[in-house]
C-alpha cells in the first residue's frame, strides 16, 4: 500500500482511515507493506510493515533528482515507470538523515507533480523487492506510485493489479478552485488504475462525473468506525452543565464548511442565546472565521480551539450536545462517526458520504441555513429526539467496523486476481 500519513503523525482523516483499514485487513490475515513518504518517529502498532520512502535512497540520488527540472523529473519517472530497464542502484537501501531533511523541506514547497513523481521514483525501488499480489494506493499523492509499482511488478513477472482508493478528491477539497496539477495527477491515476475504490456512493459519483471513470470500475467500501475500543469517559464539563453546546471539529478549510458553522452559530443564538458553539481545528480559514465570529457578535458564544489529538478529541466530542459537519463536499466524514461513538448526535451535510451509512444522522444541505438552524434547535430542545438519534446511530455503527470494510476490500481484490490464487499476500 502507498499512503500519505499514519497516526499519530497525521493531519486529518486519511491517516486515521489508513490505520483502520490496515488493522481490519491484518485481522483477516492479510500481510501489508505500507509505504509512507516519511516516518517521523516510531509507531505504536505493528500489524504491518511500515516503509519510509524518504529513507531508502542515498543523498546523492535525491540531490540529483531534486536538481532536475520538473519536466526532466517527470521524464525520469516515466522512463523508470514505463521502461524496461531497472537501475541496479535503485535497489540499494540507505537511510540517511540528510536525505530525510531534503524531502522534509521539499514537502512544504515542491510542486504536486514533483512530489508525486518523487514518490513514484521511490516506489520503483520499493516494488522491486518482495512479493505482493495487490498494489493499493490512497489519494492523489500515491497514484503515480501505483502506476510505477505495477510496471515494476510486471517486469518481474508478477501480475499485481493497481487499485486506487479515493478518500478525497481535489474537487472535494477546493471545489472549482483546485490545483490543476493535482487534478491532472488524479485524472491520469484514476484512468490508469485497474480498479477504483470510493469511500461512499457520494464519492463514486464525484469520481465518475469529474474524472470520467466508468461506474463499473468503481466499488464503494465504507470506512469503519475509527477505534474498536470504547472511548475514555470524561466528567461532565462545567460549560455543558450550563449550556447546550454545538461542536465543529475538522480542518478549518473551504471543504469543511467552517464559514457555514459560523453563520449557523449566529442563526441559532439569535433564537436561543444560551447555546454555545465550539470550533476545533486549524486551517487557512481559521483567522477569517474568528474575525467573522467577532463581527457577527458571537464573542462569548463561540469558542475556538486548535487541532486536538488523542483523548482530547474524545473529550471535545463529549463536551458537545450536537456535532455539526457542514462540509461543502465530504467523501466520507469519519468525524461524524467519532462523535456518535462518544455519545454525541451528529448533523451532517447531504454532501457527504457518511450521510449514506446511518438513518440516524441529521441531514441538511450545507447551504440551507434555516434548515440547519431548525434541526439544531430541535435536537437541543428535545431530549427524547436527541436520545433516539444517539441510540439509533450507535446501533448503525455496529455495521461499520473496519473488519467489515476489510472484507469488502477482499472481495474487490478477489475479483481482480487470477482465480487460482488462494491465499493472497497484499502490498
Amino acid at each position, binding site marked *: 500500500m502507498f499512503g500519505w500519513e499514519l497516526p499519530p503523525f497525521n493531519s486529518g482523516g486519511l491517516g486515521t482511515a489508513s490505520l483502520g483499514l490496515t488493522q481490519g485487513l491484518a485481522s483477516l490475515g492479510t500481510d501489508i507493506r505500507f509505504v509512507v513518504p516519511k516516518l517521523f518517529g516510531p509507531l505504536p502498532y505493528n500489524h504491518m510493515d511500515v516503509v519510509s520512502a524518504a529513507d531508502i535512497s542515498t543523498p546523492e540520488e535525491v540531490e540529483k533528482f531534486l536538481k532536475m527540472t520538473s519536466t526532466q523529473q517527470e521524464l525520469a519517472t516515466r522512463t523508470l515507470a514505463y521502461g524496461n530497464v531497472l537501475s541496479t542502484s535503485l535497489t540499494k537501501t540507505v537511510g540517511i538523515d540528510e536525505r530525510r531533511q531534503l524531502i522534509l523541506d521539499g514537502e512544504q514547497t515542491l510542486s504536486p507533480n514533483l512530489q508525486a513523481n518523487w514518490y513514484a521514483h521511490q516506489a520503483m525501488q520499493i516494488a522491486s523487492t518482495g512479493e505482493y499480489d495487490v498494489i493499493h494506493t490512497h489519494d492523489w499523492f500515491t497514484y503515480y506510485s501505483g502506476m510505477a509499482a505495477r510496471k515494476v511488478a510486471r517486469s518481474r513477472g508478477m501480475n499485481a493489479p493497481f487499485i486506487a482508493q479515493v478518500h478525497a478528491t481535489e474537487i472535494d477539497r477546493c471545489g472549482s478552485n483546485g490545483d490543476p496539477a493535482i487534478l491532472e495527477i488524479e485524472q491520469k491515476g484514476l484512468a490508469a488504475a485497474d480498479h477504483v475504490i470510493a469511500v461512499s456512493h457520494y464519492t463514486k459519483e464525484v469520481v465518475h462525473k469529474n474524472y470520467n471513470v466508468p461506474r463499473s470500475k468503481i466499488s464503494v467500501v465504507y470506512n469503519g468506525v475509527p477505534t474498536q475500543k470504547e472511548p475514555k469517559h470524561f466528567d461532565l464539563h462545567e460549560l455543558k452543565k450550563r449550556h447546550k453546546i454545538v461542536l465543529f471539529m475538522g480542518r478549518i478549510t473551504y471543504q469543511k464548511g467552517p464559514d457555514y458553522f459560523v453563520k449557523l452559530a449566529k442563526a441559532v443564538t439569535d433564537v436561543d442565546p444560551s447555546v454555545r458553539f465550539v470550533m476545533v481545528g486549524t486551517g487557512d480559514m481559521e*483567522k477569517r472565521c474568528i474575525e467573522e465570529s467577532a463581527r457577527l457578535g458571537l464573542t462569548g458564544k463561540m469558542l475556538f480551539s486548535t487541532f486536538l489529538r488523542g483523548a482530547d478529541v474524545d473529550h471535545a466530542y463529549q463536551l458537545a450536545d450536537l456535532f455539526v459537519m457542514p462540509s461543502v463536499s465530504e467523501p466520507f466524514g469519519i468525524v461524524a462517526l467519532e462523535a456518535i461513538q462518544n455519545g454525541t448526535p451528529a448533523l451532517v451535510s447531504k454532501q457527504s458520504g457518511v450521510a449514506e451509512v446511518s438513518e440516524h444522522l441529521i441531514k441538511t444541505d450545507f447551504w440551507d441555513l434555516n434548515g440547519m438552524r431548525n434541526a439544531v434547535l430541535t435536537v437541543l430542545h428535545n431530549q427524547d429526539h436527541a436520545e433516539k438519534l444517539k441510540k439509533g446511530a450507535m446501533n448503525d455503527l455496529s455495521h461499520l467496523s473496519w473488519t467489515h470494510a476489510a472484507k469488502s476490500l477482499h472481495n474487490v481484490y478477489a475479483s481482480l486476481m487470477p482465480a487460482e490464487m488462494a491465499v493472497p499476500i497484499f502490498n
Partner: protein
Amino acid sequence: MPSICFYFQVHQPYRMRPYRVFDIGTDETYFDDKLNREVCRKVADKCYLPTNKTMLELIKKHPGAFKISYAISGITLEQFAEYTPEVLDSFKALAATGQVEFVAETYYHSLSALFNGDEFRSQVKKHVDSIKHYFGVTPTTFRNTELIYSNGIADMVEDMGFKTMLTEGPDHVLDWRSPNFVYEPWNGRGMKLLLKNFKLSDDIAFRFSQKSWKEWPLTTEKFAKWVHSINGSGDTVNLFMDYETFGEHQWADTGIFDFLRHLPEAIWQNSEFDFALPSEVATKYPPIGKVDIPDAISWADLERDTSAWLGNPLQDSTIEWVYRLGTAVLETEDEHLIHQWRKLQTSDHFYYMCMKHWEDGDVHKYFSCYDSPHEAYVIMNNVLTDLEIKLEDTPKKKVHEAPKKVPVSSKK
C-alpha cells in the same frame, strides 16, 4: 527659564497563559506566572536595575537639580514585589531623594476611563493608595493609561482632585500650537495640562539607535542643542517615554546609558535651563490656553488615538464583554475575583488583538506574547467564559442590600 520635564511609564502586564477550552471550569490560573516572572527578571536586569542605578547617581551628583517622574502601574508594583523585590527597593531609594515625583494612573493600566467612570475612579484610588503604601507620597499629578486623554476624562480626573495631568501633544490637536507650554483642559477648573513633545521624546525612545535616521548617532550635544533652541518660544520640554527605552528597547550597547549619564550636563550648558517635576512645571509657568480634545487621544501608534486597543471586532466585542461582567463581579465582593477581573482589563490584552498592518503592526508584534491577534482573542474568550462560570458559582453579597455607591468622587 525653560524646564526639562522627564516622565517615564513603567509597566508590565500580567500576561495570560494559553488557556484552553478544556480549562474552563476546572482551572483558575489565567496568568502565566512563569512567563511573567521571566519577563520581569529580564527587564529588571536589562533596564530597571541599571537605569535606576544611573538615575540615583545623577540625582546624588546633582542635588536639587536633576529631577524625574514615574508612573508605575499597580500591577507592575505587585510584580516587582513578588518577582524582583530589589527593583522595588531601588525605586524606594529614588523616592527617598525627594527629586522624584510619582504620577498616579489606574492601578490596572486599564481603559476603564473610556468605559466606566466608577470603575475608573476605583482603580485610580487603588493606585494612589499603593503609591502611598510603597513610597509614602500622595500623587497630585495624573496620567491615564498610555496617555489616553479627552475632555471628559480630564473632567473626571480634576474631580478627583488632581492638580496636573499629562498627555500626548499630537499635531492634529495642537495644530500651530506648541507642546512646550502649560495648557488647561477645555472645561478645566484650574487643573494644568502638560503635553508630550513627541518629536524630542521619540528621538530618544524610538530613533536613538536607528541607523537609517539622518541624525544618527544622537549625541547629548546635538540633543541639548535641539532642546536649547526652544528658548524664548517655550516654557517646558516634556520628554515622556517608556522607561524600558533604557536598556530594553534601546540596548545598553547602543550607548543609551552613556547618553543618559551625560545629558544633564549638556542641558546645563545653557544656564537658562533646568529640570523640573510635572507638579513644579504646572505651578512655575502660567497656562497659555485651553485645548479642546473631545475624542480620545493617546501616545500610541501613528494615529495617536485609541485604535491600538479598540476598533476591530475582536477588541470591541471582548472589552464590551469584560465591562458587561462588571456589576456582577463587584456584587460578589470577592476580592480575589475582582482582582482577576481587573487584571483582564489591562490595556495590553487588547493591544495584542490589534490587526493594523502598517508600520505600527510591527511594534504590536514586538510587544505581543502571542502568535497572532486571533490567539490573544481566543485565549481571552476562554478565560472570560470561565470567569462567567465562577460568577454564577459565587454568591452575590450585595443582592439584598440597598445599592451602595462606590465612594470615589471627591467633588467639592
